[in-house]
């Protein structure tokens, strides 16, 4: 009974993805004539061939997105876990103040236009790779999760014992906290990877240089340019609009890009998964 329900639930998740895969392999005529089906009348590799033809932009975006994701996640985990460690130490006097400082930003954020002004006019982060890494380096929410994780899974007595043994904070962090902390890091790391991989808005707002455009932004741009031309009747009406519409990527090409964008993240899950299970079984005080 339960497994039947689970099978149905997983079908809800798997089938749409499967449909996207199938559409990406369908021919344009088959989509026009029969719409989206699981059994297209004609299979075609045209979409993927088209993608290969568009050449360097996709490859560039792919590489740059992987770079943003990995660098961003690694740096962000390093900064946030150290911050969380400090906040978890009862003997640290500014603990409450700093926690509130982080917490406050969760309640009141700057909003779009002020952050744009700050990032562009004062920090000059626009059109650089740093816009993907620095502003999103620390998330107050994740810091508080990590802090709570340290507080609840690692007893203070363990820290005291280490201090008596002559360890400084850095040693404690590296030798005691990090090994016990993998499940927490893996969770936040996964969130980070997924968020960074899927972030299209930053690229849309701040990036002009085509070499720096991430994959999701590129996908979004293709989609929005098609929508824009379709919706703006005046524009689609003109000679230019019609020519543009005619040469827009086909439905199956867009699905093929989606597949390409989804695949790496599918592989990220199993990598993190092993830490989740370990996190459940591991503990700092045995017996």
């Amino acid at each position, binding site marked *: 009974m339960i497994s039947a329900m689970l099978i149905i639930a997983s079908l809800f998740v798997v089938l749409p993805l499967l449909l996207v895969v199938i559409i990406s392999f369908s021919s*344009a005529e088959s*989509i*026009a004539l029969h719409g989206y089906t699981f059994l297209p009348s004609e299979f075609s590799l045209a979409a993927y061939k088209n993608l290969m033809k568009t050449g360097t932009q996709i490859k560039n975006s792919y590489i740059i997105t992987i770079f943003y994701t990995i660098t961003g996640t690694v740096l962000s*985990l390093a900064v946030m876990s150290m911050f969380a460690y400090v906040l978890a130490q009862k003997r640290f006097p500014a603990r409450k103040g700093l926690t509130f400082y982080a917490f406050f930003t969760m309640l009141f954020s700057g909003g779009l236009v002020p952050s744009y002004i700050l990032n562009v006019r004062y920090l000059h982060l626009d059109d650089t790779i*740093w816009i993907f890494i620095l502003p999103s380096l620390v998330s107050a929410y994740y810091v508080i999760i990590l802090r709570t994780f340290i507080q609840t899974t690692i007893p203070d007595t363990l820290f005291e014992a280490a201090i008596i043994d002559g360890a400084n904070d850095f040693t404690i962090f*590296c030798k005691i906290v990090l090994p016990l902390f993998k499940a927490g890091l893996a969770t936040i790391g996964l969130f980070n990877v997924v968020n960074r991989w899927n972030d299209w808005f930053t690229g849309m707002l701040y990036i002009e240089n085509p070499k720096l455009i991430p994959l999701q932004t590129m996908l979004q741009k293709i989609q929005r340019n098609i929508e824009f031309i379709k919706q703006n009747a005046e*524009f689609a009406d003109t*000679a230019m609009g*019609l020519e543009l519409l005619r040469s827009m990527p086909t439905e199956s090409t867009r699905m093929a890009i989606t597949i390409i964008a989804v695949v790496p993240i599918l592989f990220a899950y199993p990598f993190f998964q092993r830490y989740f299970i370990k996190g459940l079984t591991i503990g700092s005080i045995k017996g």
Partner: protein
Amino acid sequence: MKKGFLSKLLVLLIISALVISGCQGTGSTGKSTTEETKTGSPTEAPDSSLEHVELVWYSGVDHIRPDQDMVWSEINKYLKERINVTLDYHFFAMADYADRIPTVINAGQYMDILFMGARYDFVSHAQRGAFYPLEDLIDKYLPKTKAILPKGAWEAVTVDGHIYGVPPYKDLADRWSFLYNKTMTDKYNLKVPGPGEWSTFWDMIPLLYEAKAARDADEPELAKYPIMGVVNVVNRYYPYETLYSLAVANIPGIEAYEGQGSGETVFNLYATKEYREVCKTIKKLVDEGIFPYDAKNFDPDKALVNAGKLLGSFAGGYIEIRPDMFVGRETGLTTSKLVVMTTNYVQSGMQSLSSQTKHPERALMFLELLNTDKTLANMVRFGLEGQHYLYNDEGRLDITISPRNGGVTNYMEYGYYYWYGWQFGNILAGDTPSFVSTKFPQLLKELNDNAIQDTNLGFVVDTAPIANEIAACANVIAEYDSDTYLRSGMVEDVDKAIDEFLAKLEANGAQKIIDEIQRQLNDWRASVGKPVKK
């Protein structure tokens, strides 16, 4: 083992963080030094009275071309020679531009020139003081441009008495155009009304039925497909002038809406019997298989269009077309006798100066040059001679025989080509390309000069007193008057839906909007000496 790995990873992280922050420092200083050299470089001005200025230009283009930087660095060299100006250009594809420009304006980003249009909320940005008023500078810095553009075009970009934009010279008036599959109409012996022999979409409907009958008889398996994509723009059936939201007015000389005056009367478009008739007609055409059901998802890849199985499409603004624009068949164009210049149509694109600009005179000098200088106009629209275009044996500008644009079949793949780009000023300033006839400039002038000018060009509604009603009605309109509901033919009972629609509009203050706009229109018309509604 694991412990060792993680601590090593951490050390690596810290080192890389240090290295990266170091890089960041050098990176930013590197950037600022290049900026210094850019602005501080000695200027070799031909005219010593003009110091070198770099203008920041934000603009939308239909598609980013791969050779953009190559062409624009040459353009910058040329501009430096002529008016000692270089451009720091920021070009975006249209949809990206629409996403970005409101934030950029609101954030107070420094700009000199920016592309504007009705779809980027030109009027509300103008009312909030985002643009530099041009009326005092035009005579001095844009004398030739002023002479090129019809008077109505300047009126249409005037907001509260100030001119806030320089419209391009292109088709400045809306002329209904029908692009049809000439191979198909010849094959089935269909008679398409010729140019000037028809006025609105109503005149085309009989042809659609004939075409569908003929095609389906010839190819019965196509019977389940429509003969053309949906035409659901009310304007194409009964032309009107939009004043704001649901408030519209008749166009003088056409008066499509019975008993609603001739431009001086404001009325609710959705409450007219003509609107009801249009919705019913769309439904009838969908039911009878002329238009597709669920038009939004019909033929998303244009497979049926490209295969030449449809009759054609209804559009606006065409002057000439390439008969070979679709591969494998001949395409024909017929245009209506109605040509209307409306505020919206003119406002579809223009270059404005940002209110922040420190160099309004120089920016206008550049725009004047863009509108009048043949060398510049050719570079901007066609790229570099010898690379992106050549002159053919007849002396016409030809992109198809050039090394970088030749042999391209897909519009997106040109190295550099923006001929009909309305961001770039006067389309007649440069050469016309070889695929249009030599009569093109003449035809364009005729179109603009013969246009009926709607009498409220330049009238702008002050929405402050009715902001709440407008917002409330906008939601109702989005729900009912959408291309997935009333104007899609996918509605069971048109009368019932429209009655419901009108009742909701009424409950949300539609009448107050009409009354207020009528009052403002009366004041405005009295102030410019036009007849006012009694």
